[in-house]
């Protein structure tokens, strides 16, 4: 089969690999994306043997005429429903280059998948149905191409056969779509009349479109180039990790832009620490005189420095002369994919390069539905919309403006461990100043401690309520201290939410007391439950009582049943009130009355910190507050039933919790000590 010129082909493949260009096909649903892809593969002879017959069989089995979309819609559910759910990729080649064609779903509900596909592209083809014209997803996809940084775009006006190859219709649509894209700063490289089904305008300028003086689709694709390497911009090397596998301390990462050389003066951001590049490490280890001395944008490398600076994953190595900005306030134009709208006060994790920081949205401007082209004048950015945000970060991140560096000027937003948005950095705030909310909170905590210490417990809670705006949450597990605090909150009629975490493994006595407590105080206590999927996964992995197996297994169980639900209970709260006492165990003795938790941006009040157990017993007795009958049977600190036993005489108060483990570190992770 290759007998003709095997040597010649092998050599050309080896020495001069053809350029590889990634093209995403986007546009409104049913405007012909799949048909265009099928046609391109067919016209270039790129389909494997038997594929056409297989697609015919798949179409016939569903009683449909031949359907190109089955080429990429490989999932049964996609084929059965006749829609593209997720993005896919397929290869084809022209005489001058190799292409990866990326198919992107046209339905709004799968916009996250369109973004996943389009973000990998060097260039895009935006397809418009000649009959239907520019539609919602046409505009939305165009806008997202801009936000994703795709700057090479060709437009095809498809189904020209259905409008009788009318040059006038084509000219009108061309003007409309080119105008829209130009408004975004995207100039289409070409606008091409085609019929993907019949083949006009794909590989050939057929008679029907003889009036078209521009390129065919294949000619337009051949003019696109691979994304340009950013070697000419200043050096940006985001650190992925520091490896100490042997006596070398290797700083590993990929160069996002610029070049690096042995002997370069560099700055590590944030913090602006200086060092000199000592070596560029490589494996297999080259001869000393052949060791690499320079590296460029795109390469994944490892370097050593001339001194042991503190640096970690997320740091950015930059030239001493042209360092990145670092700051705690970032402004960005973003798209948002989560069902819950993005609002001022939304808490997020921001990722830039390899760095991440918790943050809170402090402003929203110019929210737009890019599909309808109407400004929303809304205070929120709804799902699949775009807008400008300002985000205040718990710690400074190094970043560039997207206008200055397209590679390091991008921000990704994450919530609950899942990516939910992203966009282009417009500005990076003053490196010296943390955002107002965070400085305020930390300073506020420090200032309030002496005031609170001077007050009786009940007044501490009331004082915090007066001093702190926003939502206050008290989490109760119905222990004797918790019952006392519930009394303090209800009797003073404080606007504080009562929440309990039902792990599903509590003692029957707890449920009885829960009901009795609600009845006694006339208040409903909000219950927060574990996520069903996480719990099912946990039990499948470790068994129903797998937590006895190891400390690691026990902590996983606590994580799913208590810690993660607590995160949801406290989401968006300004402060958290707990019944922790300092004399319960050695590690609780060091907790403070009021602390600021930088990771969750919460104030945490432990109003009974200086109480003894006797104080709690006396308080509840005096006020007739119901308490757990288990306390009288030797259970003092009560958690989940399988992990709590009664105390023996003389034992430490928390000795009955996870009694089989090390005595000093028995926490589930709710309270950091």
């Amino acid at each position, binding site marked *: 089969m290759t007998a003709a010129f095997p040597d010649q082909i092998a050599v050309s493949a080896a020495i001069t690999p053809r350029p590889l260009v990634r093209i995403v096909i986007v546009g409104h649903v049913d405007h012909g994306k799949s048909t265009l892809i099928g046609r391109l593969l067919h016209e270039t002879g790129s389909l494997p043997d038997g594929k056409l017959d297989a697609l015919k069989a798949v179409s016939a089995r569903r009683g449909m005429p031949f359907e190109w979309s089955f080429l990429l819609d490989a999932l049964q559910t996609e084929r059965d429903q006749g829609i593209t759910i997720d993005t896919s990729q397929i290869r084809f080649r022209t005489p001058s280059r190799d292409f990866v064609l990326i198919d992107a779903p046209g339905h709004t509900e799968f916009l996250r998948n369109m973004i996943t596909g389009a973000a990998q592209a060097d260039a895009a083809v935006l397809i418009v149905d000649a009959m239907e014209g520019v539609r919602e997803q046409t505009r939305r996809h165009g806008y997202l191409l801009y936000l994703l940084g795709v700057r090479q775009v060709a437009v095809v006006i498809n189904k020209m056969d259905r409008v009788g190859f009318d040059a006038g219709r084509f000219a009108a649509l061309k003007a409309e779509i080119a105008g829209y894209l130009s408004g975004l700063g995207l100039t289409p490289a070409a606008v091409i009349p085609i019929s993907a089904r019949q083949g006009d305008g794909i590989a050939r300028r057929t008679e029907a479109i003889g009036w078209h003086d521009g390129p065919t689709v294949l000619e337009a694709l051949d003019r696109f180039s691979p994304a340009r390497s950013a070697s000419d911009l200043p050096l940006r090397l985001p650190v992925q990790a520091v490896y100490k596998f042997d006596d070398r301390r290797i700083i590993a990462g990929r160069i996002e832009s610029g070049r690096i050389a042995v002997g370069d003066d560099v700055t590590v951001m944030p913090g602006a620490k200086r060092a000199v590049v000592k070596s560029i490490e490589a494996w297999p280890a080259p001869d000393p005189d052949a060791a690499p001395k320079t590296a460029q944008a795109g390469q994944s490398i490892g370097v050593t420095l001339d001194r042991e600076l503190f640096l970690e994953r997320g740091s950015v190595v930059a030239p001493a002369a042209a360092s990145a900005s670092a700051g705690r306030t970032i402004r960005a134009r973003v798209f948002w994919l989560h069902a819950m709208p993005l609002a001022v006060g939304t808490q997020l994790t921001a990722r830039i390069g390899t760095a991440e920081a918790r943050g809170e949205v402090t402003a929203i401007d110019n929210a737009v539905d890019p599909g309808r082209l109407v400004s929303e004048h809304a205070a929120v950015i709804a799902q699949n919309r775009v807008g400008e945000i300002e985000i205040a970060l718990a710690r400074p991140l190094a970043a560039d403006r997207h206008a200055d560096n397209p590679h390091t000027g991008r921000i990704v937003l994450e919530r609950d461990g899942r990516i939910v948005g992203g966009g282009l950095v417009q500005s990076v705030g003053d490196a010296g100043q943390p955002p107002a909310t965070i400085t305020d909170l930390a300073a506020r905590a420090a200032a309030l401690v002496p005031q609170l210490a001077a007050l009786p417990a009940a007044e501490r809670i009331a004082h915090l309520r007066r001093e702190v705006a926003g939502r206050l949450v008290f989490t109760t597990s119905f222990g004797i201290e918790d019952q006392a605090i519930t009394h303090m909150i209800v009797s003073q009629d404080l606007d504080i939410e009562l929440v309990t975490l039902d792990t599903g493994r509590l003692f029957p006595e707890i449920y009885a007391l829960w009901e009795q407590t609600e009845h006694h105080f006339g208040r409903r206590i909000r219950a927060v439950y574990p996520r069903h*999927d996480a719990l099912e996964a946990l039990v499948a992995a470790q068994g129903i009582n797998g937590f006895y197996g190891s400390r690691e297994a026990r902590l996983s169980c606590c994580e799913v049943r208590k810690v993660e639900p607590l995160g949801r209970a406290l989401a968006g709260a300004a402060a958290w009130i707990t019944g922790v006492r300092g004399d319960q165990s050695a590690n609780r003795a060091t907790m403070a009355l009021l602390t600021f938790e930088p990771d969750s941006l919460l104030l945490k009040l432990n109003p009974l910190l200086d109480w003894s157990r006797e104080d709690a017993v006396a308080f509840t007795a005096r006020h007739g507050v119901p308490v757990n009958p288990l306390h009288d049977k030797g259970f003092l600190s009560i958690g989940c039933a399988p992990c709590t036993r009664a105390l023996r005489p003389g034992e430490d108060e928390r000795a009955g919790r996870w009694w089989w483990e090390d005595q000093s570190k028995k926490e589930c992770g709710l309270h950091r000590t």
Partner: protein
Amino acid sequence: MTSTLQKETVAVAAGNSRSARASAATPMDRLDELEAQSIFIFREAFARLKKLALLWSLGKDSNVMIWLARKAFFGRVPFPAMHVDTGKKFPEMYAFRDRYAAEWGLDLLIEPCPPIDSVDPTLPPATRSAARKTEGLKQALAKHRFDGLITGIRRDEEPTRAKERVFSPRGAEGAWDVRDQPPEFWNHFNASPPPGAHLRVHPILHWTESDIWAYTRREGIPIIPLYLSRNGQRYRSLGDADITFPVASNAASIDEIIAELETTKTPERSGRAMDHESEDAFERLRTAGYL
């Protein structure tokens, strides 16, 4: 023993890898770009997941993966290489495994697969046979509690693999929820599996079969000789000996394989019986946790 093995594996002269000739003066070529992206993915997985393993199927793709891992971590693979063994591989594959696990200093884990009786009887025969590996994998995951499994699938192999993410979440039973894959862009990956679940990490998802061979040649990575033509036939993809078949080919060297791939229109997995038993056989395998 060693001399037999020497004959049975093919090692091409090494020494042309970029790291040995790296400099900013030469622009990166396509293999350099593929390599850099894979190394980046390996390092992200190692930084963000707690307990990783690399699935070593002994084939050309996973050997390239191990090579890339050694580059990423400067010669050392800092997590176990796990072979989920159906017990039905070709003898040459076992010989290769034992030799290179030692030579490359791998932390090798060999995990067995359960008997065929324990596998869903409604699957077509070859698919059912292949599904033993899924069961073996599930048992290994339950035993070691890995939160990340690095595997060598590629988009160009098969259409459902073309829809994969680089970091792909799996449920408790290893199941792939293709209807709800998270967004993934700009080399930011979703790396927080819920407890009990795990992530599949795909460092060579973006490579093609030709890329694998071109890189194998450039770097001098050893291969199992079954890939090379003998008597007009060779294996393009290696699996269980009883459900994997050779294709007609005269390509007896890596150069000839690369030349053959320039023109062939036969799909890579045409010799893998389980892909072709029914329209949805491979998707059923994959959604249940197969690679």
